[in-house]
């Protein structure tokens, strides 16, 4: 197990040797970093000079052998939360990250728990005549 973790930790540095991989990492990071002076554009998409500077910064960090997580942290230290298009997983962002999957999971759980409940279709709010009319109407189209 220890060796596995060690291997996983080493993997990024092994990958660093390959310039094509470096470029792919750089492009992926560019798409996650907001250009601080532009309107909701990543530094990948922006033509602005500051975006070019930030791209250079990220490339330099990759060349130094920093991991993606380290680069994100250094960007955060430099520019704050605003610069990261992928919000950090913090206490105040917990709802943002956890609520959608929770809805799916809890909802699925509820559905599963109630699966045996017999069908309980209510048409009794209609009078007998109305129900007949409804049936006729629906029959024509089924």
């Amino acid at each position, binding site marked *: 197990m220890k060796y596995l973790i060690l291997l996983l930790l080493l993997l990024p540095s092994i*990958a660093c040797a390959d310039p094509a*991989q470096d470029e*792919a*990492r750089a492009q*992926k990071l560019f*798409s*996650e970093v*907001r250009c601080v002076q532009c*309107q*909701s*554009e*990543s530094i990948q*998409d*922006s*033509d602005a000079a500051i975006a070019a500077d930030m791209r250079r910064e990220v490339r330099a960090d990759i060349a130094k052998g920093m991991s993606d997580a380290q680069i994100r942290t250094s960007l955060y230290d430099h520019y*704050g*939360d*605003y*610069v*990261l*298009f*992928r*919000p950090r997983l913090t206490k*105040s*962002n917990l*709802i*943002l*990250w956890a*609520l*959608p*999957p929770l*809805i*799916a999971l809890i*909802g*699925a759980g509820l*559905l*599963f728990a*109630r*699966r*045996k*409940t*017999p*069908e*309980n*279709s*209510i*048409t009794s*709010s*209609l009078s007998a005549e109305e129900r007949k009319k*409804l049936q006729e*109407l*629906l029959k*024509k*189209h089924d």
Partner: protein
Amino acid sequence: MINEIGDYCLMLAFCFSLGQAASVGIGRGLGRWAEGMSLAAAVSVLISFAVLIHAFSVSDFSVANVYQHSHTDKPLLYKISGAWGSHEGSMLLWCSILLSYGALITLLGRGLPEGLRLKALGVQGLLGAAFVGFTLFSSNPLDRLDPAPVQGLSLNPALQDPALAFHPPMLYLGYVGFSVVFSFAVAALIEGRLDRAWARWVRPWVLAAWSFLTLGITLGAFWAYYELGWGGWWAWDPVENASFMPWLAATALLHSAIVMEKRDALKAWTVFLGLLAFTFSMMGAFLVRSGLLTSVHAFALDPARGILLAIILFITAGSGFALFAVRAPVLAPGGLFAPVSREASLVLNNLLLSAALCSVFLGTLYPILMQALFDKTMSVGAPYYMAVFAPIMTAALLILPVSTLLSWKRADLKGALQRLAVAFGVAVLAAVIGTVFYHGPFLSEMIFGLGLLVGFWLIAGTIRALLARIDFKASRLRAAPLAFYGMVLAHAGLGVFVLGAVVEGHERISVQQPMAAGDTVHLGRYDMRFKGVSSKPGKNYDAQVGHFDITDASGRLVCAAQPQRRFYPASNDMQSKVALCFQPLTDLYVVMAQPSVTAQGKAGYQVRFFVNPWVRLIFFGPLLMALGGVLSLSDQRLRLGVAARRARA
């Protein structure tokens, strides 16, 4: 004079809408008056809108809105589309569509029970009065200027584009279409009737609005793709999300309404979604105008109007949901069903769509709330949605083909899976072959493969469902109802879209560098040579045309791209015009941006060159989906027509 007529008609429309609501509210035989009022209101507001279009097309700068957003040199199409290119004009467009839908309830709703129809008209009247009132008193596009200026200030050049000219009307036909569903939902809650027939009456409206919204969003994405020059088509920008949220809600609604119609279940949930779809539409309208968002799309920012819109949103949605909370538990006791059945799978689809909707909602509003409550700035962008939204939707899409092969009430899951085995095998094979050709980090190769699998699975599974329906006999193709083909097209279109989005997202390559005449840049299997620049005068701009020859590996000329840089003297604005060369599925995309000096010290331009594989599928898929909606709708109308004719005979 003519402008005063428009102004007067807008006032009339406001009064008619109020009257429409009041006559239903008073009742006692006055109710039928609402029908006439709804027609009169629609005619008035359409006259008013026609007057605005007239003012734009003749460049009548005595109208403040025309002065601010038009110019005599503009081509006629963009003069006309300028009528809805501003906040005021787009509000009038919104009102015109809103009141027209009201008139359509009167015209097409003859077969509905009178109580429900009149109550829906009443609610529609209230909505109409609120929005026409807002337009009339706070954002009147027909306000005059004295003295009239001789020349206008022009429209933003980025908005002078055919796709964008038709984008707002399509989008609004969708947004506002949900107002009818909202009105019917409120009417049913007041009336105290929620039954299968209600779902049947509401479905055509949902289908129509959903189809328009699909088209509108696609046009917007296409515009962002080829006009903004950044090579992408969807940025998870708040304004884009604002149009995507009602779409997700409406997609869930479309499916839950089917369950309600067929099985008399999910009633409260369907009504809830009906209220939600229009609430999100109104929220979109509010967010874009509130000044709360920074976006490439936001326009006409004015906090004061934003607050007014927020009040309208709060009152309408608030009272709708309050009514729902009080009435729904009484009206719609939860009917449940067998765990393996078409309806159960559709419930699962609704659940996953809701979770996906929740992620878009949070991603859009979280930064705004954090800013407002804690004064903290933060960003939520594509990586968040890829991590949260995409897995949820992937689950929903993997279930989809299974759902279409399950039968109602009690289905045979094993049988359905067996029947789908071949389709799944085909999808896996296609995905594996596709992934072999893609090289990237391991994780992204896996995601790429999964994405391809989802896309091919949707298409193959849908074809399998079609084959099951016709029992593998071509002679039965005609027997299947149009609505079924609508479903097939919509689901296959979704698969096409997924394939495009996955391939484009992973395999898009680009290069950006300064280039001078004579320079060559290499990208993928293409070489692009910059030949030089020529000048070309346009109608209301001067263009510098760049000439680029793109050759493939064998040296064959694939495309002579001519991107432009246009200078609009009227607004003193520079605009880059993208050159698109399209291979059957792949786009070669060239942008010539600001002048720049190359590494060799020669004067040139900053040039971006993209190869966007399969990008056309991203726009073609949703077109298929909308076409599916229309097919399904025409089937329904046919059925409604038949029912109405028989009823009369």
